[in-house]
């Protein structure tokens, strides 16, 4: 039985990845989950220059979900390359960097810097962050803008390029096709749904910038639908995420057409979830007599 999964030129031991912004740089979870049971870790959103992110409060819990407006706090790609990369490069899983920017150029420069880091086999281009004013989601909600960014990055970056799509659109397949046309090796979806929370008693918005990104089990039905639609619209692999909390959820995404999956918010609830999902997929394959994980992808009856 094999769970080996290939995305672009990158090979993973299994299709279980952790989602950007929810798993730090991996090391934060090292005590709680064996990192070598994961297919890949996608580290925090990284930008060309350091960013402070948005003010506190940055999160609010909602029914079966949470909103966040962290706003890409990070110390910039140079700091990543010099101080963080050395500490994580030998972790025994694929370490992927999630890249953000505010123009095609800053995306490309950031990606270029990461291209030089030997042990980073792939980047995930975040054109879908709802929590920053400039860039972020703007690139992910317009096919032309998305194409422009992917084109610029594709020139600057030579390893596996994953483009992360926003669900806050009328037709996600249009953006996916634009990314594919510009040379993306895969698309991942969904990023968070834009939402809001209000404190009725205090008559205030709960988040410092008003709106935030919704994640967790609440969004799973929307994510599943978009993965299903997108995997039928493009030929490159689709990486599915949004509300995955256990192996059954993960398998649903793969049946819908995802070649790999990511776990986000569920890491906060159950830090061990990544390993449990990998085990659960194996168990499912055994019970359903599936020898190769690739036979699970899109295998709806």
């Amino acid at each position, binding site marked *: 039985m094999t769970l080996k999964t290939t995305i672009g030129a990158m090979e993973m031991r299994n299709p279980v990845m952790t989602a950007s912004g929810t798993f730090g740089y991996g090391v934060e979870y090292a005590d*709680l989950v064996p990192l070598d049971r994961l297919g890949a870790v996608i580290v925090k959103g990284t930008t060309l220059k350091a960013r402070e992110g948005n003010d*506190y409060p940055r*999160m609010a819990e909602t029914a079966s979900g949470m909103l966040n407006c962290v706003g890409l706090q990070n110390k910039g790609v140079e700091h990543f390359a010099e101080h963080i990369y050395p500490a994580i490069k030998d972790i025994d899983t694929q370490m992927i960097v999630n890249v953000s920017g505010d123009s095609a150029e800053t995306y490309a420069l950031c990606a270029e810097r990461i291209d030089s880091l030997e042990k980073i086999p792939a980047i995930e281009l975040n054109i879908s962050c709802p929590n920053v004013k400039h860039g972020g989601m703007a690139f992910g909600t317009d096919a032309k803008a998305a194409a422009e960014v992917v084109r610029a990055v594709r020139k600057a970056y030579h390893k596996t390029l994953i483009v992360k799509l926003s669900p806050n659109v009328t037709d996600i397949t249009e953006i996916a096709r634009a990314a594919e046309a510009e040379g993306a090796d895969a698309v991942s979806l969904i990023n968070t749904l834009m939402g809001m929370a209000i404190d009725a008693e205090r008559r205030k918005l709960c988040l410092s910038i008003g709106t935030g990104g919704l994640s967790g089990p609440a969004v799973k039905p929307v994510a599943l639908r978009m993965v299903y639609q997108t995997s039928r619209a493009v030929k490159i692999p689709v990486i599915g995420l949004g509300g995955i909390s256990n192996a059954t959820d993960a398998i649903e995404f793969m049946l819908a057409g995802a070649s790999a999956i990511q776990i986000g918010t569920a890491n906060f*609830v159950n830090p061990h979830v990544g390993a449990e999902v990998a085990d659960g997929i194996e168990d499912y394959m055994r019970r359903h007599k599936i020898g190769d994980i690739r036979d699970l992808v899109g295998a709806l009856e």
Partner: protein
Amino acid sequence: MNEIQHKFQLKLAVAASEMLSERVAHIVLTDDRPLPAMRPGQFVQVAVPDGGVLLRRPISIHDISEADNTLHLLVQTVGRGTHSIASVKQGDEMDLVLPLGNGFPDMTEGRVLLTGGGIGTAPLLYLGRRLKANGCEVTFLLGGRTAKDILRREEYEAVARVMTTTEDGSDGERGFVTDHSLLGREQFDAVMVCGPTPMMKAVARWASVPCYVSLENMMACGLGACLCCVQKNHEGHNVCVCTEGPVFNTNELEWK
């Protein structure tokens, strides 16, 4: 404080659980194996039983008894999560991630004032016990709205001198902890505080000696991974309360 400390996700057994007042439960947890070492001021992330709520809830370590291998929590019912946690029964299992954060400084000498209001007094018991054992001279100054809010007084008294204030004067001096006559009378080498933010700020304004506060920012991961729990430090940078705190020297914070 800087030796490497590992984190664990453990299922602990509820050895006892009782309501100390209308809104506060005292939960005693134990395990077959020795509990990991924990420091005063650290906290745990409790998975909420029954599934009505998504995220874990951060709760301070109220006390540790190495003798009987127990971890004590005080949980005040606020919303859905704490209501579920407070209703666990003896024999139930609770899923915790621990120990989290940095604790209070591990002082070994001097006169230390430990003050807090309401449920904020929770971490002070274990802290006082530790500082006392280290050789400090400890004073507890516990505040509440009314006499019933002064919780587990005997346990605090067994460790050190206890002073109290209540807003209605039903226990100790009337007023807030910052109104207590002790503050005008005695000198301390350090102050450690946990309670509502306005109270902690008031104490910090009064204190001319190092003042440590324990913040209760909203958290998702508790592990330094999500960056939801940040607080602005004195340099204007956002730092994680869950890993760089929850205890801060007020000098490190941008507090108005």
